[in-house]
């Protein structure tokens, strides 16, 4: 739920990275944090388990500069991906303005990607939002595993499984090496801001 502060001419918007457990959502944010260190004033907040799995969320506030005279502050969040954390995951979705779905390209995660996307649709519906209308970008992560000989789904298969109805922008990526992490983020920010601009005019 974007918030506009007319006094300080500031806009705040919330972008959530969603997807199955161990898919690379937190890694995306960690890469962004390390890449833009000088521009990000605060530390990244990560609420995780001792085993380094996201327990509640990761949070990274990011000033992206001025758009139409307004200072735009993006709040990047990740959700816990494990199935058992559905109740907590739903809480993090509250007030979301844009989403990145991080899919795991490994063959054995195919079903989990589909189930997680369905779970996203259901959780959005609880907030009366449609997955077809919320600004959304798909990321097919872990493409780097190919060179280690691990079987990956071809992007065409991922497109068919996840994007045949949504028809949103998608990026093949490797969050651990940073490949396409920033373009994914820039795309979702621009989609999210596109709607904002219409309202700010």
């Amino acid at each position, binding site marked *: 739920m974007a918030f506009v502060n007319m006094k300080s001419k500031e806009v705040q918007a919330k972008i959530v990275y969603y997807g*199955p*457990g*161990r898919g690379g959502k937190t890694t995306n944010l960690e890469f962004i944090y390390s890449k833009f260190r000088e521009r990000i004033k605060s530390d990244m*907040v990560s*609420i*995780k*388990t*001792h*085993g380094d*799995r996201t*327990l*509640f969320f990761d949070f990274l506030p990011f000033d992206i500069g001025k758009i139409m005279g307004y200072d735009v502050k993006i709040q990047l969040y990740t959700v*816990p*991906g*494990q*199935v*058992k*954390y*559905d*109740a*907590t995951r739903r*809480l993090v979705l509250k007030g979301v303005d844009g989403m990145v779905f991080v899919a795991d390209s*490994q063959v*054995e995660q195919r079903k*989990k990607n589909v189930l997680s996307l369905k779970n996203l649709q259901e959780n959005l519906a609880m907030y009366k939002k449609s997955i077809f209308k919320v600004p959304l970008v798909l990321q097919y992560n*872990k493409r780097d*595993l190919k060179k*280690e000989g*691990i079987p990956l789904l071809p992007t065409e298969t991922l497109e068919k499984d996840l994007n045949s109805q949504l028809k949103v922008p998608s990026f093949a990526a490797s969050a*651990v090496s940073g490949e396409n992490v920033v373009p994914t983020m820039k795309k979702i920010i621009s989609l999210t801001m596109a709607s904002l601009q219409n309202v700010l005019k």
Partner: protein
Amino acid sequence: MGSNYDDNITFMDYTLDQEQLEHIESVLGEDLIKSGVHCVLLIDMAGNIIAKCDNGRCQHDLYSLAALASANFAAVDTMAKIVGEAEFSLLFHKGENENIHFNKVNEEFLLITIFGKEVSLGLLRLKVAEAVEKVNSVFMQAA
């Protein structure tokens, strides 16, 4: 990245055998349920339910409660650090009919007790303190 990693495998730092688990559950039953507590959960910081006991009439979604409670505990802990505190004392939440009390058992576990008006907070805190001591001694044996 752990390509064969299964979502469901959790590796815990402790191992409790059947006997120890039963011991813990009987502590929960004897010290707490018998004192009028509706339901009690021993959870780890990742939201897994290690042991539980209830008065037979508890139909709440305990699995979601455990996930939320552990996440919430971690969030409050993080808030404490932001304002320069080591930790906050997150004692209990009072409702109209049901109340929830939280107690850290040790670095790894939380005891969550759900109770109603029949149990005074004072009595509950006493019973919880006793139960926590007993549960801790079971863990000492397991370590």
